[in-house]
């Protein structure tokens, strides 16, 4: 019990150190520009299709469900309003982050884990190259940049999907739908949805890099670190979403 507690505290300490060093590395030389571009491509372009696909169907399902529920109360015209708030400030950032952690986070953890097991990270250290600067910083930076961009595009695709259902299935007015969404695009709602992906990107990349670089014990160890990276990222995204929503609602002056 005491041993487990000590190991957990050690792990936390190492994680904080790695994630802080990884972020600080953005401001310190040398800059691995080529690695950064490669990671941007992997995180961003590589995830675009899956994020759009997931958010498109989430938007459509949400619109379908809400239209059915609201039409019973004669409030079908509010579909756009509820869909807009839900997707822009909550569902969009969280769904994009979950997809990102499943695809990019798992990829990062397994790639770095394999580099550890194959002594590639040791080779870097012997050559005098800081593995955190070379491997972690480009991954953290590209995630922080690409996840918000993916969320933005995913939100738009999701709203279009919801619009299609509202107009062609639920037979609502497209003008009313877009107008009610536009009405909800206040600074507070947009900021709430735009700020979260930056934090989620940092959480996913730092956890995945840490778990990858702490891989021990061959194929089983690699499986364990990849699984833990994804599970931990998902849990932390959900927790962080709640904490951020509570803080931002307070800061932005929303009354409950």
């Amino acid at each position, binding site marked *: 019990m005491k041993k487990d507690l000590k190991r957990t505290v050690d792990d936390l300490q190492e994680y904080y150190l790695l994630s802080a060093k990884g972020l600080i590395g953005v401001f310190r030389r040398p800059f691995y520009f080529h690695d950064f571009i490669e990671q941007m491509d992997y995180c961003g372009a590589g995830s675009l299709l899956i994020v759009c696909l997931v958010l498109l169907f989430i938007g459509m399902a949400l619109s379908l469900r809400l239209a059915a529920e609201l039409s019973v109360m004669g409030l079908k015209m509010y579909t756009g309003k509820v869909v807009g708030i839900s997707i822009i400030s909550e569902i969009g950032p969280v769904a994009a982050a979950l997809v990102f952690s499943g695809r990019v986070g798992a990829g990062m953890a397994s790639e770095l884990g394999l580099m550890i097991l194959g002594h590639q990270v*040791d080779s870097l250290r*012997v050559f005098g190259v800081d593995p955190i600067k070379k491997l972690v910083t480009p991954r953290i930076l590209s995630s922080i940049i690409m996840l918000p961009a993916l969320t933005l595009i995913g939100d738009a695709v999701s709203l279009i999907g919801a619009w299609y259902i509202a107009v062609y299935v639920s037979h609502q007015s497209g003008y009313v739908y877009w107008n009610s969404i536009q009405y909800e695009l206040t600074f507070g709602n947009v900021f709430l949805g735009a700020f979260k992906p930056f934090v989620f990107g940092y959480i996913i990349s730092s956890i995945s890099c840490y778990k990858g670089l702490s891989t021990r014990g061959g194929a089983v160890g690699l499986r364990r670190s990849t699984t833990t990276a994804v599970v931990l990222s998902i849990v932390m995204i959900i927790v962080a979403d709640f904490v951020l929503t509570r803080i931002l609602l307070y800061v932005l002056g929303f009354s409950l």
Partner: protein
Amino acid sequence: MIVFDNVTFGYGPKPVLEAASLNIGADERVAILGGSGEGKTTILKLILGLIRADSGHIIVDGTNITDKPEDELSEIRRKFSIVFQEGALFDSLSVRENVAFCLREFTKMSEEEIFVKVAELLKIVGVEHAIDLMPDELSGGMHRRVAIARSLAAFEPKMFLYDEATTGLDPVNADKICRLINELCKEGTGMIIVTHKVIDAFKVARRFLFLQNGRIIFDGDRPGLLQSENPDIQEFLNEFRHEFD
């Protein structure tokens, strides 16, 4: 060059290396022998400061590296050229990029100069035809030779370190690697090879250390090793005796 003073190291409660003391000169050619999991690779990692000793002192080229912080170890590490088990080439880079890695990182050579240097190094190790291949397209022997070329590109090493350089290779390729190791040591540069293949160790080394249960149970030359009365060493050598008889 390398001094271990009562060094103990373990990944868990059971030590992998226990109270090891040794002294290796810069021009010595040493083979560290022993079965799998006996702590052979651990010695190489301790020399480079990749892992930290639990107790004891490690002195490399006059510098005590036991508690040296990571950022101060670069200078020590540059005195060695290491080839890790299975080469440890960077998967995402081609052979050319792998060998050019340190030249790009630490020199101000132009791309043209780097290209010439890479070609020259690959020619030395005999894999110049593989310059545009990716690591997963290489055979085991080519993998090791490219890793040796990459380690040569790094710096001017005072000593070569080889971790299981011939393990998993067929006898022809293993022999080629041994000849290459001997070529590189011609000018008096020392080397340490970690291996469990006695026959290859005899081809390249002059001094032999035998590890068992984390302890150095033999330190001497080839006749001494062959005549050792330690039953564990005899049992280990018996497996290979038909090859060198």
